């Protein structure tokens, strides 16, 4: 049997298959369909300092090959999360990453400080696709601001690993990747959703109450592969920083493709809504692929894409 375990900073995942933030709730919702303990890792929905109701409906709509969402970071807030959600997450089995969002650097620092008091967390993942209320810039699209945020959070994340989830809504993803690493990120998650919009031509109104949202699903997969590959080749390989790849993964073939591009682990998101049991087949498929190729460890396919050059 090939070795499926991979290393994300100090944390060892028993296999490279995870679930993406916001697509598997707080871990119990899929229990009737998916044995959560078979996952390598699990990431919670974004948690913020104060509870958030989120955006008014309509919050999602299906788009070609994917979907558009504007949930608006609906969550119970860090205090309630620590009380009612975290104890449950800790019993799930896989490595648990808590995704954190905020409106200011202080928000992020405070949430991470509270999370660091919890036992048994693998780490935190910073969702930086949120606007900074102070200057209106999105943390994840401004390299200077991003580095400042990660550096501020770094000292309070003492026990778990610090993941930074990159936004694809940038001209040069390598510059935000470098900024996150310079700030002290242990690993990068990539990618978050692409900005998108849908207009109902009958009512001539945007379909989402929030007007715009984030595109996810198979439609964004080629962009995710390209971005992972670039960041791996130009930034993280030399820096020794692992990438958790996501964006349209629905089957083991996609997972293998992401790993060849440079991802150390792969997270399944939108695909879970239709197939909550998908991670089981993905783990099995990766294993079969390794057996068929005579490979002893899944680490052998990370970044193994052959680059054809003249």
């Amino acid at each position, binding site marked *: 049997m090939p070795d499926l375990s991979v290393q994300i900073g100090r944390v060892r995942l028993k296999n490279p298959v995870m679930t993406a933030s916001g697509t*598997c709730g707080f871990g119990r919702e899929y229990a*009737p*369909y*998916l044995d959560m303990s078979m996952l390598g890792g699990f990431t919670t929905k974004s948690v913020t300092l104060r509870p958030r109701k989120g955006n008014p409906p309509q919050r999602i709509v299906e788009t070609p090959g994917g979907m558009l969402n504007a949930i608006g970071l609906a969550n119970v807030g860090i205090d309630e999360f620590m009380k009612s959600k975290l104890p449950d997450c800790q019993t799930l089995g896989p490595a648990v990453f808590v995704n954190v969002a905020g409106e200011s650097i202080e928000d992020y620092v405070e949430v991470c400080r509270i999370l660091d008091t919890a036992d048994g967390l693998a780490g935190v993942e910073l969702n930086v696709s949120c606007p900074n209320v102070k200057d209106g810039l999105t943390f994840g699209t401004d390299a200077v601001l991003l580095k400042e945020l990660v550096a501020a959070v770094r000292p309070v994340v003492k026990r778990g690993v610090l993941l930074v989830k990159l936004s694809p809504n940038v001209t040069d993803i390598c510059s935000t990747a470098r900024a996150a690493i310079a700030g002290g990120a242990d690993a990068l998650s990539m990618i978050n959703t692409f900005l998108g919009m849908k207009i109902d031509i009958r009512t001539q109104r945007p379909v989402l109450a929030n007007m715009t949202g984030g595109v996810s699903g198979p439609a964004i997969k080629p962009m995710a592969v390209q971005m992972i590959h670039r960041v791996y080749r130009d930034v993280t390989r030399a820096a020794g920083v692992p990438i958790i790849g996501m964006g349209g993964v629905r089957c083991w073939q996609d997972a293998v493709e992401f790993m060849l591009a440079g991802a150390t682990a792969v997270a399944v998101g939108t695909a879970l*809504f239709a197939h909550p049991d998908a991670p089981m087949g993905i783990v099995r498929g*990766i294993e079969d692929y390794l057996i068929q190729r005579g490979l002893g460890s899944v680490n052998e396919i990370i970044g193994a894409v052959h680059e054809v050059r003249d």
Partner: protein
Amino acid sequence: MLEQTRSQQYQKAHHRGFLRASVSTITAMASLEQTSALFRSTVIRRRSVSVEHFEITLAVNGFPAAAPGQFIQLLHHEPHAFEMNQGDANLIQFNTDTISENPLLRRPFSIGALRRSGDQTEIDIIGRVIGIGTAWLDALRVGNSVDFIGPLGTPFRLPPKNARAILVAGGVGLPPIRWLGMTLTDMGVDCRAIIGAQRRELLPVIIKQKPTNFAEFQHILGDFEPHPVHVIVTTDDGSFGMKGRVTDALAPILCGTTEGELVQVFACGPEPMLKAVGELCEASNVSCQLAMERVMGCGMGTCQSCVVPVKDDAASDGWRYALCCREGPVFDSRVVIW
């Protein structure tokens, strides 16, 4: 040819324990508040109900306990091999990228009736064709298979036996109301139904008998048979039954209830109708449960897409968003904020 390959691959997936795994999880999760699972069912009956509505009956084994108001999440395409949860690197010659899978997301459908015999369960679905997903369902024929997840959501709270139930359905809101009517009459609860549509062709019911009296029709609809549900039909344009809206039929019934009589209203239909029914019931101080609809991403409580604003005294500002797929789809009319 291709279809055959897919079904062979499905067999293989089956063999490799995909279904076994989900079934064993059900057993392990039997203590959970909500027990549902992934199923592969077969279409055993299909009929056209009106110009826009069709009905299909799905047969499935091992379906957990379910109750009126609950729904299932149907996959609206034949599952591809890669969706069958199998590994097998031999499948590498399949280019999964060129497999289109729209619609990508499952779609929610109310259970319109449910019958059990031994391990087998038959589930009726009534659908209205409004898009690609419902068109795919409409094109299904006997023998085709359908993947679904269920049962999902919180069902109607059943009234006590001595209550009088008034069921109100607008358009394709009929399915949960129909199953509720069957269940209640089996329990011995006195049931009366009001079924409304814009016009005759849009009534999602089979009209069995010519009406003799234009205000009320008893047992003219095949839908509730053999259940003794007294049915009133309304159409906005008067092309069938009583001219007007369901609330025009409901108001006199609520007015006519006597002191001390326990009346409960159950409704499903378009949101403006639910609001009107809820307000009418509140004015008459009658308890009313509404089966609501939202665009749903998952149906399982993870995506947070399906929110309904509800009153909640525990919230600092008196309200919160409730998930239609978990807390709902059935809500008490008094808690919904319109």
